[in-house]
């Protein structure tokens, strides 16, 4: 067992973990933060997306012990039913989900994607690598690491656009 300190959603936590414990299982099984989902456990679906030190990653493909001392934001840290994050609100308004299982990962990804675009990080569909714009094509490409088998895809893009528009105004 190895001691691991994580700051999750602003709260310091102290865990003793088997080094094999993925960050995902540390959240779900040890901290009981089950909002982050396990869809494939192999980086193939994106359901486990969380934001670590400001960047979205697949929490299934990293060990908790490798994040000692780091800050992690999960879906629970973005908002609660009584105090929704604007992205959460927009997903409801635009029906950006169906079964709800990929949803926390989609939302964490969406929040981070807007920051990535803001930071000028290019994507596969960026024509001029120096000119990163917020377009539907950019959003679709950047969200492609989050699979939604119910396929609420256009609704998710609408939700993100809604938030992005709101932020700009």
């Amino acid at each position, binding site marked *: 067992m190895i001691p691991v300190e994580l700051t999750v959603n602003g709260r310091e936590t102290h865990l003793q973990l088997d080094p094999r414990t993925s960050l995902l299982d540390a959240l779900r099984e040890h901290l009981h933060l089950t909002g982050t989902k396990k*869809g494939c456990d*192999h980086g193939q679906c994106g359901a486990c997306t969380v934001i670590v030190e400001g960047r979205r990653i697949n929490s299934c493909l990293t060990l908790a012990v490798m994040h000692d001392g780091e800050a992690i934001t999960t879906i629970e840290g973005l908002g609660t039913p009584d105090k929704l994050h604007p992205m959460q609100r927009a997903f409801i308004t635009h029906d950006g989900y169906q079964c709800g299982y990929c949803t926390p990962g989609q939302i964490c990804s969406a929040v981070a994607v807007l920051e990535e675009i803001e930071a000028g990080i290019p994507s596969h569909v960026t024509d001029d690598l120096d000119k990163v714009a917020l377009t539907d094509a950019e959003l679709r490409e950047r969200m492609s690491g989050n699979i939604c088998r119910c396929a609420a895809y256009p609704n998710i893009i609408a939700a993100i656009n809604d938030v992005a528009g709101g932020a700009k105004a």
Partner: protein
Amino acid sequence: MKFDTPAGLNPIDKGRVVGKAHDRIDGAAKVTGTAPYAYERHDAAPNAAYGWMVGSGIAKGRIAAMDLRAAEAAPGVLGIVTHANAGKLGKGSMNTAPLLGGPQIDHYDQAVALVIADSFENARDAAKLVRIDYTSEGGKFDLAAERPNAVKPPEGGFGGSPDTAVGDFDGAFAKAAVKVDQNYSTPDHSHAMLEPHASTAAWNGDKLTLWTSNQMIAWTVGDVAKTLGIPKANVRLVSPYIGGGFGAKLFLRADALLAALGARQVGRPVKVALARHQIPNNTTHRPATIQRIRIGADKDGVIDAIGHEVWSGDLPGGGPETAAQQTRLLYRGANRMTAHRLATLNLPEGNAMRAPGEAVGLLALEVAMDELAEACGVDPVELRIRNDVQYDPEAGTQRPFSSRKLVECMRAGAERFGWNKRQAKPGQVRDGRWMVGMGVASAFRNNLVGKSGARIGVDAKGQVIVETDMTDIGTGSYTIIAQTAAEMMGVPLEAVTVRLGDSRFPVSAGSGGQWGANSSTAGVYAAAMALRAKLAEKAGYSVDQAEFEEGLIRHENKSQTLAALAGREGVWAEDSIEFGDLDKRYAQATFGAHFCEVGVDMDTAEVRIRRMGGAFAAGRILNPKSARSQVIGAMTMGAGSALMEALDVDTRFGFFVNHDMAEYLVPVHADIPEQDVLFIEELDDKSSPMKAKGVGELGICGAGAAVANAIYNATGIRIRDYPLTIDKLLKAQVA
């Protein structure tokens, strides 16, 4: 409540809440990650141990020896379930192969053990230490090779008779002025819902509670009881949130059975989720098909003869993929035949996946129609309109459709999509490196109905509570049931609480075959009518003249609040909807028209969907918002079946090789741009008091064919072997 005569005007027709677009009432729970799924019940089953399934490494044969010593000695291991210690197990009536294999092995990754440990990591690790020696017996794994050995399956089942015939098909086809005679094939498909099959089990004495991810609570209670040999009354299933199913979770599967056996063995709650890479071979899949379609028409495209033959395979005792179903009902033609043949295959169990039958049947039929349109020189939209039929063409005019708006869907959809811009001749439109084409296909899915019950009450605060074992697999059941209750009881949506997915609640139709929405809301309607009667009686009003609105029951100039009538005890009523023979007297189905525009790279044959659109008629649309999502989601699954989805069979080892989500590809965001959905107004009074029909599967039916037809229109290349991947398109381009 018996529903055996067409519905008249009823409280639903007010359309105050039902039929309006509403946000999902379970939305906040889902977007905040607070909705609890089956593997996440730290609240209900704290201290659950972790089970890891061991799957068979061969497809067919026997376990010669199992050595559990190393696994049992591994750190944290609490127990190991195998056939040798599980006790005598029955087989669920919905299962083809036993869920716990051994010594006989029926398919690859059939469960042969569950290793239970104190942590997930220990269970997963110890499972690798289970040593199994097999005696392999080989098997049949190749549908094309087994096609000559396929037989006529037994009568019955969801698809009806395996064969039908009307008139003189052979004679009429032989004489037809224009003929299409083609073979098509579709591969095995995987549901690939995002939440794996998962269950948490806990025993209290001889009573079992399963928190599980399951579409059909009552079926599965029955099969748990049957498999374990315990009374149904001792089994409770709880399944309030289900992370997608698409048919994969219709039945008791290994996760739930093994969790129950494991929890019994170690005397503590046990939870089991199938690992993603185990799912395609351990669970069910949509079986591959080979299909032959023959259509004979006059020179104007009017069909006189239509025939559809289907070959599929399954384990012994399994059933066929009923891909000719829609061909019995969709188009006119006096001379008709359909036939299903079933081969024995020792692949994993084939079973229902979203729109079983039609989803792959239309991949073939609607391409054949496109071929007929070209052969006759008739526009494909017009061809389908010409061949519309307002009665069951096998039964004749005495069995009309309850409602059928295929023609309206075609016309409205074509206009909205800009179909008139399509060039009839393939390969004419270019946009840079993209060859651009448009395709159309009919959408058709049977409307199934099933008995469905609910309990409904009102409490002292005027809150209306609905309880039913209906499930919400992303379909929007919570919301449409709340809308129904709100409409019936005259309260706002916010005043309704809906509790689903618990076997303690009245048995519903469950979620499958797109029967859930219509049947379960009709069940709520029935219960609400009973509650209205009780409240009216309590108020001293005539129920026939009482109005329920604004939280009140009103009669002439008098009114009382529901809250006051409910009192501290509350008032409850329970009833169910039972369907008579209206679905026998009338053909009942849902219809639509799919349109698609694709670009195909002129050099590399990469296909990109540019836009999809469609018009659909499915009775009353209970919640246009969630219904639209159902349709676009299904359209996307249809696009997946056209372009990329296929379980690859290794015919030597007898398993699906690409058994994870890196290898079994489903569409991602970037594959799906614009999708447009138009609902055609329709009320079907013969379907239920809701005058609704299902819509959850209609969207997949024909969607893939529209993509395939668009590819043909773009390129002039016709591929009849799905999916339409780059390798096949390139090969055809060269040829």
